[in-house]
C-alpha cells in the first residue's frame, strides 16, 4: 500500500490516489485534494455534500453513488455537476477521503 503526504500528513492511498483509510482524513486534506481536482475553494455547498458522503460511508462502509448523494443530500444532479465537475460521485469520494464508489458489474 502506497502512502503520500497531503497537507503535512502521511496517509495511505491506492494506485488511483484514493485514500484507503477514511479515519486519516481531515478538512485540510480535503482542501488539498479539492485543489488537485481543480476546485480552488470549497464552499458551504461543497461541504454539505462532502459531509453527507462521510456520514453515508460511515454506515454503509462505502462511498455513495451519484443517486444516493442527490436523494440523500438534497442537491440536484445539475448542482452536483456544477460543484464537482465531470464525474461528481468519484470526485467527491476522493475529496472526502473515501474509496472509489463501486460500480456494480
Amino acid at each position: 500500500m502506497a502512502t503520500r503526504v497531503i497537507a503535512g500528513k502521511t496517509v495511505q492511498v491506492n494506485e488511483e490516489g484514493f485514500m484507503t483509510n477514511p479515519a486519516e482524513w481531515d478538512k485540510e486534506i480535503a482542501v488539498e485534494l479539492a485543489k488537485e481536482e481543480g476546485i480552488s475553494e470549497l464552499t458551504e455547498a461543497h461541504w454539505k455534500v462532502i459531509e453527507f458522503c462521510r456520514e453515508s460511508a460511515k454506515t454503509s462502509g462505502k462511498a455513495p453513488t451519484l443517486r444516493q448523494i442527490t436523494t440523500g443530500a438534497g442537491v440536484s444532479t445539475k448542482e452536483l455537476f456544477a460543484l464537482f465537475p465531470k464525474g461528481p460521485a468519484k470526485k467527491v469520494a476522493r475529496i472526502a477521503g473515501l474509496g472509489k464508489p463501486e460500480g456494480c458489474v
Partner: protein
Amino acid sequence: MKKLVVLGAGTAGTMVANRLSKLLDMDEWQITMVDQDPVHYYQPGYLLIPFGMYSRKDVVKPKHYFVPRGAKLIVSPIERIEPDHNRVFLANGTTLDYDFLIIATGADIHPEETPGLAEEEWGKSIHTFYSLEGALTLAEKLSTWEGGRLVVNVVENPIKCPVAPLEFLMLADWYFHERGIRDRVELIYATPLPGAFTKPVSSKMLGELLVQKGIKVEPEYMIERVEPDAKKIISYDEREIEFDLLVSVPLNMGAPVIGKSGLGDELNYVPVNKYTFLSDAFANIFVLGDASNAPASKAGSVAHFAVDTFGENFVRYIRGQELLPLFDGHANCFLESGFGKGLLIDFNYETEPLPGRYPLPGIGPFTLLEESEVNHWGKLMFRWMYWNLLLKGQELPLSATMSMAGKWKA
C-alpha cells in the same frame, strides 16, 4: 400448513418456486405465486429481436406452464406489502397472509425519468430494446434504416444485463455489414462508466474489441436530457451528442410497489444480505433476482446461481439453523459479438472477469473473454436451457459458486 408467498413469477420467482417445491414437504407447505402478467418473457431474447434473429414467438410462453405441482399462481397486480403484519394486498381484492415472503418483482425501465426521452420522437428516432414492444418497433426501424449516426446510451447504472448494450453495438456492426451499409453508419456508445465495461481486465479487452469494430466509446457520460427535435442528447457536463437514431437503455428501477410498501432504497431495490438474500429489515423476507440491492449483475444467470444456494439455505433456516454465506456473486454471461461469434465472461463479487476456458479448465468448450463460434452457440442454446431446465428448477451440471480453475491470471 405453512404459507410461502412468492411475489413476481418472472425468472427468479419461477425458479425458486420450482426449486422449493422439490425441497419442501408439500403436505406441509403452501406455495402461492403472484404476478400481474400471465405471460412469461425471455428477456435475453429482446437483444436479438431488433436484428431479425428472434421474433415475438421466441420469447413468450404462458406462465402457467411453469407453475410447479402443488403451487398456485394468482394473476393480479400486487398493491402493497405490509411486512409488519405479514400480509400482501392484491389489486383483485385478495389479501394473502404469509409465514415467509420471497420478493422477486424484478426491475424495469423508466424512460419517463429522462426529460425528452419518451416524448414525440419515442418509437421514431428514439428506441429501446429493453422491452418487448420496444425491441419489435426497433426491428422495423432497423430493417429500413438508411444509415447515419446510431448512439447507444445507458442512462444510469445498475442496469439489467450490463453487457447487453455492448452486444447490441457489436450486433449492429455485423447487421449493417450484412445489409451493405456499414460504411454509412457511425456507432457510438455513450456510457456512464469510465470505459467499455466496469472491471479493468474486461474493460480493456472489450474496449479493444469495440475499437476493432469501429465503435466509438464516449465514457463517463451522464445524460441529463434529450432534445428530441434537435436530435441530440446532452450530459450534465454539457457534452452534446447528435444522433440520427438513439437506442436508449432507460433508467432501471425496482418495482414501484416496493417503494410504496416502504421496502426499497432510492431505486426501489430491497436492501439484503448479499450472501444470503435475507432482507436487512425483516427476518421472514427474502429477495431474489433483480429486485434486491445485492451488488451482483442483474442477470438471469445470477438469479439461477442465487436460487441454487438459496434453496439449500432456506431449508436450513426453517429448521432453525442459521443461514450460511453461500452466494458469492457468481455471474456467467454470454455476449454476442456479431458475425456468428460470441464471448463469455464468468466472475463473482471478488474476482473480475478473466480470460480462460469454461467450464472445463484448459478445455472449455467455451472461451472466456475471447471471441469464438462456440460461445455464440452457447448463447443460442441458453434459450432452450432457460425454458426447459432453468425455470423448472433443475440443477445444471455447473457449480453455483465461481471457480478459478481454468482462468488465467491476466
